[in-house]
């Protein structure tokens, strides 16, 4: 397959980086630019950061003889998306002080701050550190934030599963202390051994993602991960996990070798030690067999398809020293967040709040950021981010619920949530413009408007309450998982999108390309037709995605 086996330039940067330190210290001192040096671009990712620039301003600044407006996006590592009220308060204040002020909940249950200037990285990370939060390995060729089912635990086993997110995240952290030295100004510890048996000095060939689902809810979109763990619970007891490998969504326009792929379930593993061992060895197989010359073909999904599933499984079992057990039966019935107040098995309450595209900010209509601040100030809750970019005000004692409820009412949250259409509540958009350097079109700045227009059509076709999953991204990388939606849009150029339909509602079937390069009028025309047909001809309980397949608008 690969004719040219020359390692990609990033490989050299990694091995030469002295434990991810590179020239970061020098980069921070370069006076003339707000950017970091070229090789450090790749390295800061491993520290949870991306260098970006405001693309809206590029042209204007060039005319003014100003360099691009460089700033940094910092993504935290929050396994399973759970933080305390104090940590939310910290994030709130840090966002206000050093970033654009918007807290962006991502599709992998963590938060991002944008617009942090080079000189503000250290203060930002130091402040997060005080709040016991970090951004280590939130990006880069390592294991990323571990996603996990977020709904209110209905039994102790659910909490046990959620605890795995943190355990796995810590297990797979790089060993280097560069983060502490470069950003937190901590002293080098001479006797500390940085030898990293997992990542060595070359790290993984590419990013690596792990998600954990608790059937029948697939809120984490488990099959889109490099490694999915599907919890098997019997009679209230956690038996172990089915392992699903090789999920990944990104495609590249015009590169036929790239494709979106759902993970393949290859077996079952039980017992904490074995579970962790199996997870660990999936990474080592990817480390040793993954493609290090073409980053477009370096994700586990390609490694797996190159090796073949049987060979992959054999290699994994060899490294584990035990065989995987047969796949245990499981069923996914839904994928959405469970809205509003839900009780858990301990009698505590969890309020799931739809956050449009994960952007926590105050608007005239909805003072969401202030509301969450006031709620956090009560100290009576924790906060959990969901894989659908939403937030759960969680672990509220029965006695404290009225106080929280009062705040939700006071800040207009309750009323706002009740008036959302089913389509909007099940929608997601990635960041895209103006910060994402890869964006070809708008996403989170545009989707709310498009949905408003689509709502007129939904009203016309009496589908306003229908919970159709719609997702949009600004490019084919798929950060908002558009290929796993019933209706997916991927940007192709400014104001232009490809339209995908036919994904199922539970996240077990990818959608397919229906129309290319549509502009808004054509999008609305297409939606009008599709929704009209759906409204008139669907069978009871038939989802839009399934209907699209039955109509043979696209093939499954």
């Amino acid at each position, binding site marked *: 397959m690969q004719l040219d086996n020359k390692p990609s330039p990033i490989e050299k940067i990694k091995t030469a980086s002295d434990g991810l330190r590179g020239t970061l210290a020098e980069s921070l001192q370069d006076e003339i630019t707000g950017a970091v040096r070229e090789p450090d671009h790749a390295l800061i990712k491993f520290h949870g950061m991306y260098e970006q620039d405001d693309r809206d301003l590029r042209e204007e600044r060039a*005319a003014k003889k100003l*360099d691009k407006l460089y700033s940094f996006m910092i993504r935290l590592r929050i396994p399973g998306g759970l933080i305390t009220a104090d940590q939310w308060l910290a994030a709130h204040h840090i966002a206000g002080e050093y970033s654009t002020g918007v807290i962006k909940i991502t599709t992998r249950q963590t938060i991002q701050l944008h617009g942090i200037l080079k000189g503000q990285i250290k203060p930002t990370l130091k402040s997060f550190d005080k709040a016991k939060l970090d951004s280590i390995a939130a990006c880069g060729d390592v294991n990323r934030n571990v996603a996990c089912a977020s709904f209110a635990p209905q039994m102790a086993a659910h909490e046990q599963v959620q605890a795995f997110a943190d355990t796995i995240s810590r297990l797979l952290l790089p060993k280097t202390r560069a983060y502490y030295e470069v950003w937190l100004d901590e002293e080098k510890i001479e006797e500390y051994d940085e030898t990293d048996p997992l990542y060595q000095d070359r790290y993984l060939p590419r990013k690596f993602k792990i998600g954990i689902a608790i059937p029948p809810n697939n809120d984490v979109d488990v099959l889109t991960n490099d490694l999915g763990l599907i919890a098997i619970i019997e009679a209230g007891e956690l038996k172990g996990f089915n392992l699903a490998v090789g999920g990944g969504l990104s495609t590249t326009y015009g590169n036929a070798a790239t494709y979106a792929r759902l993970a393949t379930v290859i077996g079952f593993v039980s017992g904490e030690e074995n579970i962790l061992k199996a997870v660990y060895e999936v990474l080592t197989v990817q480390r040793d067999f993954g493609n290090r010359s073409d980053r477009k073909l370096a994700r586990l999904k390609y490694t797996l398809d190159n090796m073949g599933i049987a060979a992959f499984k054999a290699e994994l079992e060899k490294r584990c020293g035990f065989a995987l057990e047969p796949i245990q039966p499981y069923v996914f019935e839904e994928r959405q967040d469970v809205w509003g107040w839900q009780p858990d098995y301990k009698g505590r309450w969890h309020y799931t709040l739809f956050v449009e595209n994960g952007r926590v900010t105050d608007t005239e209509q909805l003072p969401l950021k202030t509301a969450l601040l006031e709620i956090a100030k009560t100290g009576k809750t924790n906060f959990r981010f969901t894989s659908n970019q939403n937030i759960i005000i969680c672990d509220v004692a029965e006695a404290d619920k009225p106080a929280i409820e009062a705040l939700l009412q006071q800040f207009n949250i309750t009323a706002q949530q009740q008036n959302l259409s089913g389509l909007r509540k099940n929608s997601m958009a990635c960041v895209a413009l103006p910060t994402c350097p890869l964006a070809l079109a708008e996403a989170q700045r545009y989707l709310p408007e498009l949905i408003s227009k689509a709502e007129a059509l939904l009203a016309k076709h009496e589908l306003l309450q229908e919970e159709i999953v719609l997702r949009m991204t600004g490019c084919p990388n798929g950060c908002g998982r558009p290929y796993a939606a019933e209706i997916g849009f991927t940007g192709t150029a400014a104001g232009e999108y490809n339209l995908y339909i036919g994904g199922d509602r539970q996240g077990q079937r990818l959608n397919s390309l229906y129309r290319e390069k549509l502009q808004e009028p054509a999008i609305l025309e297409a939606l009008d037709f599709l929704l009209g047909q759906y409204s008139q001809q669907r069978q009871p309980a038939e989802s839009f995605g399934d209907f699209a397949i039955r109509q043979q608008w696209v093939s499954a």
Partner: protein
Amino acid sequence: MLAEPRLKELQNWVASYSKEELIWINGYLSGLLAETKTTTAAKNTVAKKVTIAYGTETGNAQKLATTLAAQIKKTGLPAKLVSLEQYRLADFEKEEFFFAIISTHGEGEPPIAAKKFYEHIHQNGFKVPQIKYGVLALGDSSYPLFCKTGEEVDNQLQHLGGTRVVPLQKCDVDYESPAAEWFNAVLQQLQQKEAVATAPTVAPAIAKKPATKKIYTGTILTNINLTAQGSTKKTYHIEIAAEAVDYQPGDSIAIIPENDAAIVEEILFRTQTDGAQTVQWKNESAPLYSLLREKIGISYLTEKAVQQYATITQQTIAPQRADLLHLLRQYPLPAGTPLLDVLAQLNPIAPRIYNIATTPTAHADEVHIIALQDVFEVDGQQQTGLCTCYFESLQEGDAIRFFVQPNKRFRLPAADKDIIMIGPGTGIAPFRSFVAERDATGATGRNWLFFAETDFTTDFYYQTEWQAWFNTDVLTKISLAFDNHHTGITTIQDKIKEQAHTLFEWLQSGAFLYLCGQKDPMSKEVEAALLEVIAQAGNMSASDAQQYFEQLKNEGRYMKDVY
């Protein structure tokens, strides 16, 4: 030449004198050393008390005064050389021979250093009948109020009862030869037994043929605001196309701004005056509207002009400066008083100076300037300065009039010398010219820029150009300070101090040091910081550092253009 202990002795001795005293001593010594006729001349002369006082902004008057003092010294007279800035006003009434060399600045105003003296002599209530005086006026005939201050001082000393023993000499930019003539007249007077008053009716001498400066008319190529969204300031970068402009890196241009159309229209409307009529104003005859737009200074009238307005309109107005329109609104013209009577009292629009940010070598037929919009409050209302308001109106293709204001004391050194350029804010302009010149000519000296502004992300003037020069090693080093800079350093002084050792090393190896930008408080703070740096990195006492700094100046290795 001197043995170590004697040299040390001399150095200590030198350190104990002020700069002015040293300049005097310098002249004194050169007088002593000159010719032997010194002593004979001295014998022929009756002992007299002579003071040479100078008022300068950019140093020309000082240079001439020093030369004159030295020449007088040669004749054996103890001439006292003093800057009007340090002049004890109480001494004035005790003067015998008093020769003033003074330039004109601003809009026909005295140099800031001479302001106190200027105001003092314009006070009533005292006479100086014993004074025998002469005035040498420096100026530039491209300005409408040519040598105004010199003229006024000359008149006022007579008014105070003084005897003019040497006629007023007005000098244009080529001041050397008229100044030399005037010196001769002074020396002659001093050598006479009795001073002879020059008849007051004698017309003051004027520089023979003022070499009229070329007024260029350029075309606006680009007029952009260099600062980005979110900045607290607006900074015009103006590119002017003009062929064969004769200038060198370090020079400035003077721009003759136009008054705002809306203001002119309101003035005409309020006074019910016809703008289309052709009228005579000073020496010009033109439609009133265009005179008001292009010639007549109607903004920020001097206190004197405001009082004249009060007189003409028969109203009482507290002493103040104000725009004409402001006066017309608050103290309207009485019926029957024509606007022209008021206009007759006003001065022409004064040109504004901007450092040139280009070099003929690298930017053929183009002149660029950078100007900070001057915003201030008048009665709680935001207003912008005349010239920067004019810049706001300039569009691509518009014509703009300007002349070159050379600055011989702000020049690049030989190509192999290192330069350190300190130019916060718009002070960066000449350094863009310097670096472009050195880039274009392949000069081998190292180039180090210090720059400071408010916001790193929005106010880093010419950032991409500096980056390009830095990345190609034309710019050797750049040191920056911003309120939000990632190095944490917010002021230029702190940046200079941070770089103390390297900076001193550069100076030790012969670097030339330049400073451009705001006079107050920037240039003072920078100079204080430089002294600290020299003392600290050179391991010197404060007075040694001061002396080191003076030495730099004397060697022409410290040059500044501040405003």
